[in-house]
């Protein structure tokens, strides 16, 4: 019996020639990422367990991005960033990207890609559930809590159970009215919020490999919404080109064997998929935009690790160009690099930044912002009984702030069409 890409990477990390789903392994971690919400408690646990003179297992492998609660007056949130800053200073950490400096990056999962930490064939852990995003690079990546992260900082190791794999094959090419968000919402609708629990979700087919790295990250980013341990896409020439531009590290490309075992296989013909939403209050509450169009909105939001990449803003700008929004619309670039690209990318000579400003959108600085609600002064946060459409990843009650709000999740095309309408609208009517 052959092995899947996930099984191959985990066996390499555990120093074994073969592993089986269900087997418990001790993995050697290539990168540990943390941020301002989970970093401070992780550091506390690490010191508690390994003592004040504790050693970091490998400083080059520890990466810290303050990104969650950045532009806030909340004193405790700012104190937490201060704890990270002091920690980086005390231990002379090179991979710390401080707020208020030109090293500040924004949302960790996108910054990991941009800064060259995503390397095919490696194993990356992070104190954030959307750490699965990095799987778009043909690597194993998953989220853990503070205790597990503290254990990694002290030992470089972590136990994991080898997941069973599910395979999702997309045939055909993405039509102009869809983005990868529509595809992953379909997967979630089909397998529901626990259909991937403790499993690897592997994406395959020409419909996946024709996508940009940005769009591939949208697929792997949301596998956690199905409860998955990791999402993964084999590295190809697109991946290699992206990685080589950003890192000089060597890498190994793993591919699933033809006789690898999958617990379930799903096939999608992209040409049959329609613009889609996840209705309140679950990312798996799939419906077509046509079925909910006309739903009145109070706010539109384009941002986050899921929907705040440059590809997302290019898609939204196609529709918003030359028009005016009808409801407050927030543009929150995931990273400072994306924010810069908003000024550089143009349509008919007009920068994306200008297009959004001309339309009346509010452009906010890069951070996780209202994707997860955050402190009450967070830009774009859901207030009371709002109805919001957003390119983010979760719409559980209260996720974006008020638990009285209703959130629809959709592609940047659908959110842009809805912003121009003041109600949920189908991008096919605007393209």
């Amino acid at each position, binding site marked *: 019996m052959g092995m899947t890409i996930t099984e191959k990477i985990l066996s390499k990390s555990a120093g074994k020639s073969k592993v089986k789903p269900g087997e418990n392994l001790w993995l050697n971690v290539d990168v540990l990422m943390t941020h301002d919400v989970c970093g401070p*408690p992780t550091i506390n646990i690490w010191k508690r367990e390994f003592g004040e003179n504790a050693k970091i297992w490998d400083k080059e492998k520890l990466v810290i991005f303050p990104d969650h609660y950045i532009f806030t007056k909340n004193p*405790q949130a700012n104190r*937490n960033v201060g704890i990270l800053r002091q920690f980086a200073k005390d231990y002379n950490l090179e991979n710390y990207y401080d707020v208020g400096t030109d090293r500040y990056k924004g949302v960790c999962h996108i910054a990991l890609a941009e800064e060259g930490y995503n390397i095919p064939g490696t194993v990356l852990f992070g*104190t954030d559930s959307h750490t699965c995003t990095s799987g778009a690079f043909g690597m194993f990546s998953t989220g*853990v809590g503070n*205790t597990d992260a503290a*254990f990694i900082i002290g030992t470089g190791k972590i136990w994991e159970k080898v997941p069973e794999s599910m395979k999702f094959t997309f045939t055909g090419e993405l039509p102009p009215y869809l983005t990868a968000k529509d595809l992953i919402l379909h997967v979630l609708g089909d397998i529901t919020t626990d259909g991937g*629990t403790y499993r690897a979700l592997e994406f395959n087919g020409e419909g996946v490999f024709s996508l940009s790295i940005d769009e591939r990250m949208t697929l792997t980013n949301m596998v956690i919404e199905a409860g998955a341990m990791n999402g993964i896409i084999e590295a190809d020439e697109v991946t290699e080109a992206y990685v080589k531009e950003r890192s000089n590290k060597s890498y190994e490309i793993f591919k699933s064997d033809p006789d690898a075992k999958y617990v379930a296989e799903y096939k999608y013909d992209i040409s049959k998929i329609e613009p889609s939403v996840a209705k309140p209050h679950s990312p798996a509450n799939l419906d077509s935009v046509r079925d909910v169009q006309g739903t009145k909105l109070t706010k539109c939001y384009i941002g986050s690790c899921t929907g705040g990449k440059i590809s997302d803003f290019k898609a939204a700008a196609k529709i918003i160009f030359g028009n005016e929004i009808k409801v407050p619309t927030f543009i929150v670039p995931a990273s400072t690099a994306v924010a810069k690209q908003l000024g550089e990318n143009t349509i008919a000579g007009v920068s994306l930044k200008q297009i959004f400003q001309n339309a009346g959108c509010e452009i906010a600085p890069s951070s996780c912002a209202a994707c997860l609600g*955050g402190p*009450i002064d967070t830009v774009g946060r859901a207030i009371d009984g709002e109805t919001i459409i957003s390119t983010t990843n979760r719409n559980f009650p209260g996720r974006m702030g008020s638990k009285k709000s209703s959130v629809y999740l959709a592609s940047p095309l659908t959110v842009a069409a809805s912003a121009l309408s003041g109600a949920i609208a189908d991008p096919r009517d605007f393209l």
Partner: protein
Amino acid sequence: MEKIIKGKAFVLGDNIDTDQIIPAEYLVYSLTDPEEKKKYGHFALSGVPLSQTGLQEGGIPFIKGENYQSDFNIVIGGSNFGCGSSREHAPFALKVAGVKAIIAESYARIFYRNSVDGGFLLPFETPQKLNNKIKTGDELKLNIESNTLKNISSGEYFNLRSLGDILPIVEAGDIFKYARLKGMIV
């Protein structure tokens, strides 16, 4: 490790995500400062919509008034308990509030790991749906050796799944104590 956990049930529905267990705006508080960490207990389960909190009837607050500890110390959930974010603040908040065990049909991976590796609480799995059989306030007795749950209020017995692979970590206390027992760390 306690072999018997007795206490009052607090019943919730399916897909209780970590934002409902501890809303993101409260994650700013210290988990070590003795006063500040009480906030986690006070706000535990405060993100659950009122109609869904304290089933079967709903509308029962988990925490009363300004308290940080709950009258309920066994949570009965449905499927996919603890889905959503990786925040370890979620099992931590339940622990500060006094919860000792959760009994649910299934768990999200990270919440499950955090509960066990951090030694916060016991995540038992039930092969049958219990959040429609047990009522909030029912007196329960959980036997950790025999993996059984008795509803003292109704007289019913339920078999739970064994803790399985995680039992050695649970018995040790947390992942660090387990690794020390195994000689992996000093």
